């Protein structure tokens, strides 16, 4: 029985939701974390670093909301700050230099909303990361563990292959924001009935390349492992130009219909 939007929202925002840090600790060996954007600070919402995935070095970008109040505060509940986008940019440039694929894993409401991020150029940082991810000369893959909205999430998911956990969400704005517009129109139905944002809907329009079932929970890591490995395998024969072209065509095809 497919879950309703509000059930999905509750699931992905729960403290018990699978985090990028957990996935990294289960599937990656010799993980080496990278801190800081070298300009303003270190965004704790973004775990960045490198490690071995099936014996091959990869770069990882994991956005976490935090599992308890203290972590949620530290991690700004997953709202990546200007420093996070710049850290990511730095880390993917190194990935490019050493020809490592990039895997991003997301559970984030959207970009940070604060005076600090605005005054230090969050708009440009997001634009830079979107552009750089699209032009990357190595394969990149995104796994939506929870939700991801707005340009902030797009910055991490302008990639060759997008995977989503079965209850994950990806949208132009949070379901609440969409719901608010609907309410003005006296519509009380789920925002997702009008707007594709669930994994199933986004797979239907060709944005999402694979959905990973969340049950049985016991073997979830194995399915994530297999999903990521298969996605990277499909990209390994492509050279730099082919990778760029594949990304470009993936999105162009979607927008042409």
């Amino acid at each position: 029985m497919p879950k309703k939007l509000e059930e999905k929202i509750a699931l992905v925002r729960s403290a018990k939701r699978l985090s990028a840090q957990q996935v990294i600790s289960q599937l990656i060996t010799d993980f080496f974390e990278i801190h800081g954007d070298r300009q303003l600070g270190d965004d704790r919402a973004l775990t960045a670093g490198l490690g071995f995935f099936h014996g091959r070095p990869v770069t990882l970008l994991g956005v976490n909301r935090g599992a308890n109040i203290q972590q949620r505060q530290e991690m700004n509940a997953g709202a990546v700050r200007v420093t996070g986008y710049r850290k990511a940019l730095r880390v993917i440039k190194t990935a490019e230099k050493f020809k490592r694929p990039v895997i991003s894993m997301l559970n984030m409401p959207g970009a940070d909303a604060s005076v600090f991020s605005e005054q230090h150029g969050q708009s440009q940082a997001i634009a830079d990361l979107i552009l750089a991810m699209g032009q990357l000369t190595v394969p990149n893959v995104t796994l939506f563990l929870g939700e991801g909205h707005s340009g902030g999430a797009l910055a991490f998911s302008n990639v060759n292959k997008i995977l989503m956990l079965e209850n994950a969400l990806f949208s132009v704005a949070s379901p609440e924001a969409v719901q608010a517009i609907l309410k003005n129109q006296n519509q009380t139905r789920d925002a997702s009935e009008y707007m594709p944002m669930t994994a199933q809907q986004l797979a239907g329009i060709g944005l999402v390349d694979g959905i990973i079932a969340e049950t049985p929970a016991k073997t979830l890591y194995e399915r994530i492992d297999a999903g990521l490995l298969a996605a990277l395998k499909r990209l390994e024969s492509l050279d730099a130009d082919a990778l760029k072209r594949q990304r470009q065509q993936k999105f162009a095809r979607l927008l042409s219909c």
Partner: protein
Amino acid sequence: MSHMPKKNRWQVCKHCGKHVHELQWAPYFRCPFCHYLQRLSVPQRLKISVDPESWQPMVLPKQTSDSLQFPGYQDKLKDAKKISGESEAIEIGTAKIDNYPVALGIMDSHFMMGTLNTAVGAALKQIMQVSLTQKIPLILFVASGGARMQEGIYSLLQMNSILNEWQALLDAKTLVINVLTDPTMGGVSASFGFKADYVLAEDKAQIGFAGKQVIAQTSHEILPANFQTAEDLLTHGLVDQIVPRERLRSSLATLLKLHRGK
């Protein structure tokens, strides 16, 4: 246009509340009392920015598909067309500034707050291609509240696909100048808004990513007085220059001249 009443020749300044005669507004639409700038329509913008008779508009490559059939969207589009006199939130074309040919994109905030949707995105990509193939500089007058919610993920994906097109301009070393006008926000600010060799801003324009209300509610911060104004962005090193509308045309002409129009 929209803010110019059809019969009444006097109009209240939205900022200071004083009555201003239409002859005092034109052609720059700056209040003579408080110096507040009105948002311009595309014809008003063209009149003060390009050589007379040089504007060659292009048909927009794509009309809004409304594939999601979002409730109320058709009515909003109809109203927006009536209010703005435009078919979408942008016009594209070629023109001359001091005899230098340029490719132009002019966004109109009177059309659903200039929001970025499939049609606006397609127009921006088209004008970038025109600039590339005709080897003429690109000038964008940006005015937008961000991504248009009613087209959902399709609006969001304009951000990366426009940037992808922009990369070709960068590779070809094409001159790109963006003029940020009131407002430049959200998905527009965080995609092509600042992607230019020169980023100019009109005075007092609101420029940022997240809306002020959202920031105040989320962060519980007291927002600084000048927050998200062009002046604040200049102080923080985020724009190259604030150019008053009265000097914009000559500033653009100078930049074009300094690059020998290429």
